[in-house]
């Protein structure tokens, strides 16, 4: 019964979304206030229906209602409750319901926080949002119904893929979707602005917080995914340039560019068309990711079960949404009034360069991801594009970006005086050189690439710290005065500093873990020990035990260095009888500057076990860095001026009336 209610609620949500997509748009073009006001009401109702549907599905999972095909396929009565809940979005059908739930929640948030948006703009934004909801709700209902019954019901379900029974992955999809779907708000604002023919500083100020929210969530989502791959797949790596990973990374790159260009749009009223395009592209890449992952046009180690019919549907949807918005862009954007001028050496100039580099990076990732498809479609064989391609292309594009991030924040708007910041650059360069020399001294031999990366990180970190120190006159004013100054720096500036500092941490982590990782592969017997990167790993053998819904072979290492340092590591090989599937759980000991990482493999039949041990220097900094970046987003959001919906459209810079009339007609 509850299942049917959920199904009906989802259908009702589709009906409401249809109304919300059409009526307010008509209202906005006619200037009919009542029709426009319908958007907010509809958004609320739509949200309510989808919440009902989502809860109904979750209830079916929690109560293990195996008469529902989706539950029977993806859940099992013996599964821990956390994974019963996570099971809701651990599969294609259920994840779509989560997707629409988040979409509707963002729609509700626009209503809630968009009180001071001009009514026409709000109506159009909500209408575009509803159009996206129509697409995804029909996708769910017509090709991937989560509420489909199976009769007669099986006695028990098939369970969730053991690989996915993991806290890191349980929360990975929600964050990822919050990011993907969050960009739909920026997208909706962009399309509404194109229809309206009006882009100004106020518009940018409205869009920025939404883009920031989406970006922060996406950052966390990607980091969670990569963290999961790191400890669950047991290969010691944390990023594999797999199509599924790239699908989430491309919108992130475009979204990062958007965050920066929107600042120029707000402060200087320039780069308007470009910002609009980025808003469209960021969300389009999110949709494209969905298409790639769920249609089966690309193979991936961890793709959803695919289905060509679904692929056709999403492709059609892509054509409507992405094609439509880009066509609108081609028609409307040329008429946008060009904004403020700036010199090449200026904050704007820096951000333009940032945008070009990010766009180039996104394009190369897109090309690498789709290349196998191109080759296949042209009948030239089956190829795969592996990490070497991406590393070769990506590092040279990202390195100047990191250098730039160290300089650009010091440049002033419009026209910067390079001479004025040379003094600062000297200090930064000196610090960087110091770190460079120290690094080379530490790891003499295979130092070239690594030292270069560490120097980049040092450059950015010292720039951020110096910027802050100068602002608060550290050691120049009294400590009390410095503190007062520190309090007075806008939160948005802190946000930027945090985010850039996070990048510095990330770069250091990526560099060190790729350049100086130590790996050791061997067969070990009980009582044997091996030395890896100065640590003694003593192997105590493997015991068999029982987990809640799996059997486990648990290895045991005692790791020591000198007399003071002792750590126990328990790597596991689990076997889930329901799915007849094994998983590997690496044992990881995280220190501030490195991870010790151990995996146990198969027995050799003579009492020995294959073991693999890694020493991964600075690898925790990767996720710490991503977290600091997301934190920067949150800090920036807490700035009063950024608070969602806070800004009012200034009356002093209206578009020339005739121009607006010309465009709106």
């Amino acid at each position: 019964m509850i299942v049917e209610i959920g199904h009906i609620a989802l259908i009702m949500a589709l009906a409401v979304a249809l109304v919300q997509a059409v009526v307010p748009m008509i209202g906005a073009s006619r200037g009919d206030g009542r029709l426009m006001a319908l958007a907010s009401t509809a958004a609320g109702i739509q949200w309510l229906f989808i919440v009902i549907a989502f809860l109904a599905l979750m209830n079916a999972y929690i109560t293990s209602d195996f008469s529902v095909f989706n539950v029977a396929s993806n859940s099992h009565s013996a599964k821990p409750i956390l994974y019963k809940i996570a099971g809701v979005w651990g599969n294609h059908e259920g994840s779509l319901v989560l997707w629409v739930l988040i979409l509707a929640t963002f729609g509700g948030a626009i209503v809630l926080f968009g009180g001071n948006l001009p009514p026409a703009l709000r109506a159009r934004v909500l209408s575009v949002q509803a159009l996206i909801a129509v697409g995804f709700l029909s996708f769910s209902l017509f090709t991937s119904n989560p509420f489909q019954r199976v009769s007669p019901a099986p006695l028990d379900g098939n369970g969730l893929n053991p690989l996915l029974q993991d806290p890191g992955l349980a929360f990975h999809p929600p964050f990822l979707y919050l990011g993907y779907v969050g960009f739909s708000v920026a997208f909706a604002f962009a399309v509404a602005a194109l229809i309206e023919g009006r882009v100004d500083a106020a518009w940018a100020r409205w869009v920025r917080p939404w883009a920031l929210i989406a970006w922060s969530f996406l950052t966390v989502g990607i980091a969670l995914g990569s963290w999961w791959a790191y400890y669950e797949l047991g290969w010691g790596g944390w990023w594999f340039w797999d199509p599924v990973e790239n699908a989430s990374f491309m919108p992130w790159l475009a979204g990062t560019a958007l965050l920066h260009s929107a600042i120029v749009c707000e402060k200087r009223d320039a780069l308007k068309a470009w910002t609009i395009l980025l808003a469209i592209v960021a969300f389009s890449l999110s949709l494209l990711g969905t298409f790639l992952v769920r249609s089966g046009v690309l193979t991936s180690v961890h793709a959803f079960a695919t289905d060509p019919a679904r692929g056709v549907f999403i492709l059609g949807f892509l054509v409507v949404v992405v094609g439509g918005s880009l066509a609108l862009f081609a028609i409307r954007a040329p008429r946008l009034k060009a904004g403020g001028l700036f010199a090449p050496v200026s904050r704007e100039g820096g951000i333009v360069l940032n945008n070009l580099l990010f766009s180039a990076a996104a394009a190369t990732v897109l090309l690498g991801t789709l290349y196998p498809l191109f080759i296949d479609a042209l009948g030239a064989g089956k190829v795969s594009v592996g990490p070497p391609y991406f590393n070769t292309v990506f590092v040279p594009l990202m390195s100047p970006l990191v250098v730039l991030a160290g300089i650009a924040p010091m440049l002033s708007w419009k026209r910067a005086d390079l001479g004025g910041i040379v003094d600062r650059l000297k200090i930064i360069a000196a610090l960087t050189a110091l770190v460079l020399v120290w690094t080379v001294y530490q790891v003499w031999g295979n130092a070239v690439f690594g030292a270069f990366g560490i120097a980049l990180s040092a450059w950015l970190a010292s720039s951020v710290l110096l910027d802050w120190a100068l602002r608060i006159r550290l050691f120049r004013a009294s400590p009390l005065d410095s503190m007062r100054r520190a309090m007075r720096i806008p939160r948005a500036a802190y946000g930027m500093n945090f985010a850039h500092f996070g990048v510095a941490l990330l770069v250091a982590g990526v560099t060190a873990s790729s350049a100086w990782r130590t790996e050791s592969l061997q067969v070990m017997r009980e009582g044997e020990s091996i030395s890896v990167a100065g640590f003694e790993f003593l192997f105590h053998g493997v015991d068999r035990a029982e987990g809640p819904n799996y059997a486990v072979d648990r290895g045991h290492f005692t790791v020591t260095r000198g007399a003071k340092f002792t750590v126990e590591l328990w790597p596991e090989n689990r076997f889930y009888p329901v799915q007849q599937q094994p998983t590997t759980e690496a044992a990881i000991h995280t220190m501030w500057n490195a991870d010790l990482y151990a995996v146990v493999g198969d027995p050799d039949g003579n009492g020995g076990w294959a073991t693999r041990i890694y020493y991964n220097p600075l690898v925790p900094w990767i996720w710490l860095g991503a977290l600091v970046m997301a934190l920067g987003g949150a800090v920036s959001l807490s700035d009063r001026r950024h608070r969602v919906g806070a800004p009012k459209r200034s009356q002093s810079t209206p578009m020339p009336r005739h121009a607006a009339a010309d465009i709106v007609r």
Partner: protein
Amino acid sequence: MTRKKRRLYVLLVAAVLLGGATALVIGAFRGNLVFFFSPTEIFEKSVEPGQRIRVGGLVEEDSVVHDADGLTVHFRVTDLSHAVMVTYRGILPSLFREGQGVVIQGRLDETAHFIADEVMAKHDENYMPPEVAEALKKSGQWKGDDE
């Protein structure tokens, strides 16, 4: 600084970047594309020894042999008409089993023996034996002309 001049600067930088990125991409593609072969294709076409390739198929039943060192494994990957001998040193993925689908990456040596440096077992969000996911995926759409 006029508008025109500014646009010129942006275009110039963009062009330089585009050129640089294209050169990078082409260079990277040249060295790093890995072609995919089935065991039959390896048998029929001549694949250069030493060229990095991928091979996909099923792990033949009873073909997995471990060396005495406990780390080196030999097995055959088959597409049911031809098979390739494979040697791999390392820990096999936990999903690796006889009779299951795998994709291996590596090189052929002079004797058409495949030296793998990567073994990937397919996993899927659809829990149960992954083949069921395949069946689900194709349910209704698949017309069985063996393509």
